[in-house]
Structures are given as C-alpha cells and as structure tokens.
C-alpha cells in the first residue's frame, strides 16, 4: 500500500465519496445558500474598504468567475492558449446594447442572441485552430480580441469610441427588480447562471467530451488516432467558451448601462487567463477560487491606492512560485488497488 499524504483535498474527497446522497445534498445546499447569502453576510473581515462590497460581488467576483469557467473550457480543458477572451465578453455586451436599442426585445430575449453571436465568433476564431497549434494560435486569439475592439471603436453605427449609453437593464423576473442601484439581483442572477454553467461543464467533463478535450490536451496526434474528432472538439471548446463569455458580457452591459470599447482591452483577457491559471488550470473549483481571489484582492487592497497593483503583481509572482500549478490544481485522485491474483 502506498503511503498517503495528509491533505485536505483527499480528506474531503474521501468523505464526499463515502457520503450518502442526503449528506451530499445537505452540503450542496449549505454551500450554495451561503453564496446566495453573501450580500447579507457583509462584515469587516470580508468587506472591501473603499468599494461597495455588494457591487464587488457582482463585478468583478462572480462575473470573473463566470468568465473564468468559460475560458477554462478552452485553456484548461483542451489546452489551447486563448489571449483574446475579452472579445466574447465584448460581443455579448454589444449585442445587448445594440439589440435593446434597435429591437423591442427585452434582456431575457436578447440573451440567446448574445450567446449565439459569441458562439458564432467562437466558431470563426476556432477555424484557424484547425491548422494552428500552441502559441501560434495564441497570437491569433490575441489579435482577435484586439480586432473586435478596434472595429467597435471605428464603427459609428455602434457608437464608435464613445460607445453606447442608456442600455436598459433586465425586466423584472420572478419578482426580482433589476435597478442600477442594487447590484444584488445581478449578483444572484449571475450566480445562478454560474451554477448552471458549472453544472453543464462538469457534466461535459465527466463524459465523452471531457475525455476528448483532455486527450487533445495531452497529445493531439494520438487523440486523433484513437478516433477523437479533434477538430470538432477544439471548435466546440471555442464555441462553449464563447457562449459563456457572451453571456457574461450581456449581463455586464445590462448592469453598467453604458459601454465603451475601452472597457474591453487585452488586460481583461489577461486577467481572466490569470484567474484560470492562478486558481488551477482545468479544475473548475480552482478556477473559481482563482477568479474570486484575483477579483477580490485588488478591491480589498484599494486602501493601498498607488501601491495596490505593485503588490498585486508581486503576489502573482510569489504565489505562482509557491504553488506552480495554481492554488487548486487539476489532479486526478488516484486510487491504488492491490492486485488480487
């Protein structure tokens, strides 16, 4: 029998495996309920001193988490470096902004379009992926992100550099009013969608698509020899990542009510990528942890004012050095069995 290291992850993992469905259900409910209750659990320990905590919960925290989970499908699962994720976010935001002004559709009706256009963009971006690999693909994605922004700046029909203002918020749903004033309904909405997306991604991860992505990440050639339609799954990764990005963008636009191209810079792509890697590429919980921390830390540090980003950058270097594979890396729990001969 191999010796087992003491680590929380295994302890929790073992417990989870041995837990009854009821115990699992209770745990799930408690955890999820805690997250929904966060806007009420504001206390000096978790409060952000210079910014509204409720507001921070929505942006960046939960929105970063949503985007990070989407980007993780591309970067973490299938191992494709995407430096232009902000493009999907922008497409989602602009779709909502433009369609709500030009059509009589409301936010909820526009959402599918926002995701759809972002998926289409994912498909287009994914096409060069059919031939390119590694960092060559990375620069294409980077370029894509920049192109979307430059096009937005130079297209007067969508507001040009000044962007679009007077974007309506979501119409009330299930008795929830979405006022600019109160970020909480937006937080709850995004959290709900995040849970749905997590559910979907986990489902995919545990089934054929998840294995296909992993195989592509491990060895694309061999995956193909083993019957994996690598091109199709790479495209799907872009499409799903795009859809989630588009979703996040639409919600963001509906909350901030006015968007400009300058909100969608390379920096945001990099930030989300950092969330993914910092948290632990490929592990959805790690990625969420990464997003929460990287969203939260700069806000918490706001009192440092000028020194905030200095400290933040330092923290990234130090943390990566301490935990090179991220805070909660993807790691299969191996089970050792004695051979019964």
């Amino acid at each position, binding site marked *: 029998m191999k010796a087992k290291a003491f680590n929380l992850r295994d302890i929790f993992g073992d417990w989870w495996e041995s837990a009854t469905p009821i115990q699992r259900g209770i745990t799930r409910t408690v955890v999820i309920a805690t997250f929904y209750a966060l806007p009420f659990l504001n206390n000096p320990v978790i409060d952000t001193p210079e910014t509204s905590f409720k507001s921070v919960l929505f942006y960046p925290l939960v929105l970063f988490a949503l985007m990070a989970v989407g980007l993780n499908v591309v970067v973490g699962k299938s191992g494709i470096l995407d430096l232009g994720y902000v493009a999907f976010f922008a497409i989602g935001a602009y779709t909502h902004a433009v369609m709500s002004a030009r059509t009589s559709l409301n936010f909820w009706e526009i959402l599918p379009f926002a995701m759809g256009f972002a998926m289409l963009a994912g498909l287009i971006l994914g096409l060069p992926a059919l031939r390119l690999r590694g960092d*060559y693909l990375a620069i294409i994605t980077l370029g894509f992100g920049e192109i979307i922004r430059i096009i937005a700046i130079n297209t007067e029909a969508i507001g040009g550099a000044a962007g679009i203002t007077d974007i309506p918020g979501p119409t009330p749903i299930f008795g929830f009013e979405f006022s600019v004033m109160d970020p909480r309904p937006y937080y709850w909405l995004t959290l709900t969608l995040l849970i749905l997306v997590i559910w979907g991604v986990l489902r995919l991860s545990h089934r054929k698509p998840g294995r296909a992505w992993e195989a592509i990440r491990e060895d694309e050639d061999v995956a193909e020899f083993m019957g994996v339609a690598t091109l199709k799954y790479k495209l799907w990764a872009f499409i799903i990542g795009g859809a989630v990005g588009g979703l996040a963008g639409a919600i963001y636009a509906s909350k901030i009510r006015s968007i400009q191209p300058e909100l969608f810079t390379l920096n945001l792509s990099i930030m989300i990528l950092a969330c993914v890697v910092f948290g632990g590429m490929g592990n959805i919980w790690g990625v969420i942890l990464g997003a929460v921390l990287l969203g939260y830390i700069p806000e918490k540090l706001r009192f440092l004012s000028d020194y905030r980003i200095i400290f933040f950058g330092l923290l990234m270097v130090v943390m*990566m050095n301490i935990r090179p594979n991220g805070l909660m890396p993807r790691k299969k729990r191996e089970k050792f069995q004695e051979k019964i001969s």
Partner: protein
Amino acid sequence: MDFSILVTDFWSLTIDGIVVGAIVALVSLGYTLVYGVLRLINFAHSEIFMIGTMTCYLVIQQFGFTGYEEPLPLWKFASLFLLFGLTAAMVSGVAAVILEIVAYRRLRVLGASRLSSLISAIGASFFLVEVFQKLSGAKNLDFPRMISKEPIFTFSSAYISADKILVIVGAGIVFYILNRIINHTKLGLGIRAVSQDEKTSILMGVNVNRIISYTFLLGGALAGVGSAFYMVFYETTKANVGFLIGISAFTAAVLGGIGNVRGALVGSFALGLFQQYTSAVLGYNWKDVVTFVILVFVLLVKPTGLFGESLQKARV
C-alpha cells in the same frame, strides 16, 4: 482608401518602416530567444525594454543634459550615445536575468506548466510597470534632442536624417554581432538543445541554467540597445511604453516563426514596412486589423511562421 500615397510617398514610408522595423526587431529578438530556449512567452520582456528607456533617461539626466534643443557635435553625441546605449543594454540584460531567476527559475525546475510561467510573467510585468509608474509620477518622460533631425539628404520622397541612419546602421551592426554569437559560439547550439530536451542537454554537458541566463542576458541587452535607438528616435518614454511595442515585437516574432532568430528579423521588418504602408493607405487604426488578418493567412499557409521549424507535426 487612397493608394496614391503609396506612389507619392513610397520611399518615405519605406525608410520609416525600416527604422520602426529595426527597433521592433531588437525587442522581438528577445521574445524569440527566450521562446527558443524555454518555449515561454516572456510577457515581461516589454518591461525589460521599458527599463532600458528609463536607463537612457536617467543616464542623460545624470549628465545634466536636460532639455536642450541644440544638437550636439557628432563626437559628443557618439560618446554619449555609446554611454547610455551600453548602460541600457547592461541594465536591461541584468534585469532580464534577474527576472528569470525571480519569476521563472523555480517554476522551470519544478516542471510547472508553461502557462504558470506566463502568469508569473504577467505578475512581474504588472509589478514593473506600476513601480515605474510610481517612480516617474505616471508622467511621460522627455528625452533631449541630441542629434539633428534635419534631413541630410533626400531620396525621392524620403528625408534621410542622422537619427534614421543611426538606427538603421546601428541595428545592422548589432544584428551582425548577434549572428556571430548565435552561429559561431556554442551558445546557439546550447539554446536549441535546451529548448528541445532539457534533460538530455544535461547529459551532453550543457549547463542549462547558464545557457538560460545567457539567453535572457542577450535578449535583455538587445532590448536595451533597442531602447536607446527608440529614445533617440522618439525622444520620450513612460512606464507603460513597452506595451504597444511589445505586442508588435511579439507579433513579428510569431510571423517569422517564433524561436527562430532569422524569423524575428524578417518578421519585424516585414511588419514595420507593412504597417507603415497600410496605415498610410487605410489609416493608422486599421493597421492592426490588417496585420492580424495577414498573420492569419500567413499562418494558415505556413503554420509555424515564415521560418519556423516545421516540427509541429513530428512523426509518431
């Protein structure tokens, strides 16, 4: 769209494109060298360049040469240029080596994913930009004019001035020296060996750490030299000066085939010229769009760039 400008101003655009390309190339080489050895996009390389520009600025300040407008006599300029150029090369080179030790080495030894190093690099980049933001008071720093920009002679539509000659000739000399170093010392072979198989390199007696340090030193020094040319040509810098030129340089490296020194050179000049032409015809803002479209097409035809090793599809 106005193509006539391509005819009327062809040579002026071309000369400027070569100058821009030369500066970009010096930065681009750093990306390619480091990529060659570590397969890592050294995201903080643009900050190494920025440190170079800051060094030039500080050196000049030390000498009290601030703000004058009268060009210096040639010998004085030449010795000053050598002074701040070499200092910048040194400081940038050393900064790059330190960066490698602080931000990448441990990750490499532990065999972490390349993306982890990328994030560490991004952190380092944030850190450096903000520190210099703080030090410079977030201002544009201004470099004195030391060399006349009056045209020495005209060539068709192009005005050739001393600073342009300096950049083109100076960069040419640097490229020649680099070529000697890469092709006629063991460093070049060592760099390639380490990039392909670190473990076996050790078995062949390659001091991997030293090769990597030298690579960073070389890449950093080249960026430092580039920063000196940049300062003479553009006469200004600021904490985030590296961002735009960094992206151009990285794009150029990829266009040429990242990891390949010749590729970075060709890619940079191609990019410099191409962007100059497209921004004249279509407008400055569209140049990046067109650049990326072209890049996509080049890569679709040659998936590893113009000079990239076609090893992406290794045999099974």
